């Protein structure tokens, strides 16, 4: 059944549109933005002898730029992932589609798990593809600004692998959110709305609650966005200008990872639990 779900993901235009948008955003930061910054370099004052362009450019060069790619990828990817997963899962839960699928005999939990596994596989493939995309756009950007000089420091590959693992793992929480919202509401629109509102609320409430301090300040540490940042704070490659600026004191990365895993389990488990008990209705005659 996972194969069937992967076929659907592969054949949907939404998948490729979302991936294309992510690539375009990344490419913008690595190529045109660097060109723009270089062009305006003379108009900007330098700090301690290093221009803003040089500071920015150093963190975007191949291969050090993977640190920024990892952080930027998660910050942008969370929104796009909610759009993708809500679209994929929500459209599967119309009564007509459920009848078509479930009347063939698969178990409901099996169907839901196959969907989830397929989305996770798509996430893994997507983030791996971004590494490849990075290996293309970073040198292209370097060439464009004339700073191509790839130097791989010791331990780079293992650092990159761990950073990729943290980024992919952290993004799972957004898969879980969109999966639950779309699965429970049976609507891609509602799933998308709920997922995006949660992300938006987090960014609004974090500074407010942190300002209140005490209990409320502690609560913000358990917001998914701050847990993801906590996990990524262990990254070895520098995120450069994309390092999260947050008033929150992050949890330990391992603890944050465990809390995220617990959130994910509750979201997915709860959704499957409800789905198993749901009557597949629609118009009855």
């Amino acid at each position, binding site marked *: 059944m996972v194969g*069937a779900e992967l076929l659907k993901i592969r054949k949907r235009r939404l998948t490729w549109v979302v991936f294309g948008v992510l690539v375009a955003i990344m490419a913008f930061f690595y190529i045109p933005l660097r060109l723009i910054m270089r062009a305006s370099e003379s108009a900007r004052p330098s700090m301690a002898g290093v221009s803003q362009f040089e500071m920015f450019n150093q963190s975007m060069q191949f291969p050090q730029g993977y640190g920024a790619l990892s952080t930027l990828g998660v910050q942008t990817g969370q929104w796009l992932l909610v759009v993708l997963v809500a679209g994929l899962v929500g459209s599967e839960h119309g009564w007509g589609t*459920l*009848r078509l699928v479930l*009347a063939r005999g*698969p178990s409901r939990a099996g169907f839901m798990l196959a969907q989830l596994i397929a989305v996770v596989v798509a996430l893994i493939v997507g983030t791996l593809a971004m590494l490849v995309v990075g290996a293309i756009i970073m040198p292209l950007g370097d060439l464009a600004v004339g700073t191509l000089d790839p130097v791989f420091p010791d331990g780079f590959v293992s650092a990159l692998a761990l950073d990729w693992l943290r980024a992919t793992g952290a993004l799972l929480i957004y898969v879980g959110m969109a999966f639950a919202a779309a699965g429970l509401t049976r609507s891609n629109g509602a799933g998308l709305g709920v997922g995006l509102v949660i992300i938006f609320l987090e960014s609004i409430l974090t500074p407010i609650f942190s300002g209140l301090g005490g209990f409320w300040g502690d609560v913000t540490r358990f917001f998914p966005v701050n847990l993801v940042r906590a996990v990524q704070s262990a990254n070895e490659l520098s995120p450069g200008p994309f390092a999260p600026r947050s008033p929150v004191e992050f949890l330990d990365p391992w603890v944050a990872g465990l809390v995220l895993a617990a959130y994910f389990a509750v979201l997915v488990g709860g959704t499957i639990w409800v789905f198993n008990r749901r009557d597949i209705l629609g118009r009855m005659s």
Partner: protein
Amino acid sequence: MTMDANGAAPLIRLRGLTKRFGDLTAVDHLDLDVMPGQVFGFLGPNGAGKTTTIGMMLGLIKPTSGSVEVFGMDAHRNRAEVMRRVGAIIETPAFYPYLSARDNLRLVAQYGGRGKSQIDEVLEVVGLGRRAEDKVKTYSTGMNQRLGLASVLLGEPDLIMLDEPTVGLDPAGAREVWDLARSMATDHGRTVFMSSHLLNEIQQTCDRVAIINRGRTLLQGDLDQLLTGATGVYFEVDRPEDAIEILAGAGVTASVDSTACTVWAEVGAERAGELNAVLVSAGLLVSGLGSRKSDLESVFLEVTQDDDVQKREHPSSSSELQERARLE
């Protein structure tokens, strides 16, 4: 356990099957037996509970009480095993519009754990062979319905369940579906369970019929027997009310039809001449007579209208009436 004349056990056996949605009882202690090799018609007006019943048989809806046995197994406890031998479509199936017909059938085969080798064959059977690579979003409702039938045939199921299978089809397409359903039973020995509110569809296709209304079985039997039992002789007379009295005197139950000039006598055609003589000798002018084997429509209307009258006189609850009105 119920058995037919050949000692075969029912392929589908429903006992006391009930589904309640809050105050509404959609299916109410439904009993049903479907024998192997039959084309079984499940007939009822809109909102009668047909799709809810099929939903419970397929494990899509959890019954409030009662049992569903298919192939002699509890259909809910042994769902995977049962469903491997069932091909079903419920109303117009919602295929994936961005996939081709062939890809959609690949998915159906994968979900049902069935082989993909028959995909081309079943597409040919339903006349979609040439459009197999076209995306389903380009299909008409009728083509979508044909694709649904193709999906049902995958894996050569022993039991085929079709819920309103000719919705959206033109008369020629509907005829093909009926022929296909019959052929599945007569040529391939499969059992076909077909729900419909179209009387003609059921009469053309089925061996045995159950009529349900308001979630209850009103009538169940072989189609031939139901229609034979409803045979009548009619007389066109100048004084219908007098004719009824005269016929009653001859021990015959009769009634006036809606045109108020035709009297229907509940007897076989062999008594037409004898009763004509009785009416003429009593001084009535008989301008026409004949016999007619009643069609399914008259049987259906008779049993459902009786049920409606009873329900109006003894409604279960006002909220139930409102909910049914909403569903219908």
